[in-house]
């Protein structure tokens, strides 16, 4: 059963002429890890943005289960249905790491009783200790910010997790930890995990690898 279906999706940024995505079709299932690889500028982040419900496609359709993303309340979908790790982290920089996580849980109306300790635990899992969690995001290293971003994407327990280069700034050990978490989420908890990556290691843990070229998903390789 496909949890996410792309149907001939095209996208053009407002005020530009060229389509960045040109008729992309694919379907993603729960319980699997997908890797999307491709050259810089090929449109990977744009595709993730559309899947994340940050905008609607110019042509075609994206279905979440049966529902067209164009029709549904995308605020609600972003808050509860999907977790996003952005390539540029997109954290609230003048607020602390822990506040970022808690705020995300509040927005998604998480029914976790003690949001703060849950958030500390989650940060601990991605390798952020309490002292670091209480620091402003501005004062964190790139890798630390990336891990806060990952924790935030998981905080509200979404069914779909999409991550744009989630291990780009991480050392090998942390990368391994993060990948382990992501594949456990897919394989044990039945989430759908989509990772945009340049890393061979990430592709190697993926159940399916998709290639992006010039706004098209060109090849579909079998993963591991």
């Amino acid at each position, binding site marked *: 059963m496909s949890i996410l279906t792309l149907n001939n999706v095209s996208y053009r*940024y*407002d005020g530009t002429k060229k389509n960045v995505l040109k008729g992309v079709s694919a379907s993603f299932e729960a319980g699997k890890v997908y890797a999307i690889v491709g050259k810089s500028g090929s449109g990977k*982040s*744009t595709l993730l*943005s559309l899947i*994340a419900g*940050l*905008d609607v496609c110019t042509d075609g359709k994206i279905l979440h289960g049966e529902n067209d993303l164009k029709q549904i309340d995308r*605020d*609600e*979908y*972003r*808050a*509860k249905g999907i977790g*996003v790790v*952005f*390539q*540029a982290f*997109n*954290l*609230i*920089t*003048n*607020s602390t790491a822990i*506040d970022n996580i808690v*705020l*995300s849980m*509040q*927005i*998604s109306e998480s029914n976790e009783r003690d949001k703060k300790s849950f958030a500390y635990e989650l940060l601990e899992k991605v390798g952020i200790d309490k002292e670091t969690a209480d620091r402003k995001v501005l004062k964190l290293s790139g890798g630390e910010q990336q891990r806060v971003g990952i924790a*935030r994407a998981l905080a509200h327990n979404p069914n779909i997790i999409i991550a744009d280069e989630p291990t780009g700034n991480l050392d090998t050990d942390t990368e391994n930890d993060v990948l382990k978490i992501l594949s456990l989420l897919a394989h044990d908890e039945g989430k759908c995990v989509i990772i945009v990556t340049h890393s061979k290691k990430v592709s190697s843990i993926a159940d399916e690898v998709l290639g992006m070229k010039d706004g098209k998903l060109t090849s579909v390789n079998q993963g591991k």
Partner: protein
Amino acid sequence: MYIIQNALKNVVRNKGRNILLGSIIFAIIATTVVALMITNTSDRIIDEYRGQFGIEVTIERNTQTFVDMRQRGEAAMGISITNEQFIAFADSDLLQRSVIMNSAMIYSETVTAIGQTGELAAGHGFAIAPTMQMHGNNWEDFANGHRVLVVGEMPVRANEVVISEELAELNGISVGDTIRLFGTVLEPAAAMGFTPPVFDLVVTGVYFCAAESVGTWGSTTMIRQNEVLTVADTIPGAAIIARYYLRHPSYIDAFEQELRAKGLHPIFDVNTDEHLFNAIVGPVEGMRGIVMTFMIVVLVLGAIILILLSSIAIRERKYEIGVLRAMGMKKAKVALGLWFEMITITGICLIIGIIVGSLVAQPISTELLAQQQETAQNIQDQFFAGREIAGLSRVVNDDPITEINISLGMDTMLQIILISLFLASAAGLAAISKITKYEPIKILMERN
């Protein structure tokens, strides 16, 4: 409510920017506090003044109507207001008070008027020309200090009178004496056998009069020391002079309708004499006007600056808002949060503004009032100069208001809070309307 929590945190997080915004809001609020305190207190004083003294109504023959009627051959000369009408007019809820006075021309065979040289003789159409005047119920000069009782008591019953020091001295009259006065009779009436009314009056007191004892046009009746003062009942048939004081100038039309209903002829105009009133409260109103104008200018300029500044501030936070939207926060909630931040900043400024404003309002108003006073004094002097020559006197308490105690009332407080709320919302909304137009993808991808 996490939106409020988050807004409060944001106020602290963005200290630098908020202090800048806050100082402008503070300046606007403090100015508004001062302005509102002064205007509201002025209004209260003006109202109190009105309530206390009323606005005098004038009922005058319209010369143009008079002339027109004569040209049309209508009898305009005989139209007048009867004594009964004057008394009936006073019975009105619109009036703060009224004074019914009367007066009669008199002469005496035993009391020589000041300035009187010859014997009593016919003149001015009278069988015997008057040498003095008798006034009933006219105590204005005692109220305003132009006359003072120096011996005895004021008349309370019919046929009791007070006379001037000069008149008493000239005729050797003392308190307790009885004097005989006569009313005037026109020559034709005398020829038909009418005799002058006789008044036997008891002198209960002697007054001092500040006016110069010089007659005009050779008539001793115009000398103020020749006025015999009594209660209205002493001269029941005499011509009435009435003064009516409205509670509020705006009641004039309603009052005129009442008068017309009571039979006032259209030849008479009914007006208010706001001139005197304005001379007294003028400085306060002048100050109020200046302060009001200043406040409006500050509010308009301040609002513009505030809206510009907050739009800039919000634009800086575009990214933050993009992130919130990407996390699934609804536009309305983002806006609510921003509005709440604005309200918090405004609230803090409101408290400081009210404290500082109330501290400086009094010295500012004292200074402004002093300046207004000078201008008003000149105008007032010119106005009264003419009146005093004509023998008219200033009415009670005509000194302009020179000092007002500024205070912060509930109404002022409420107005300030409403204005602040409005400012905060205007600034907030101007900014919010900008930012919520963007789809989050634009904000976030632009940063990449």
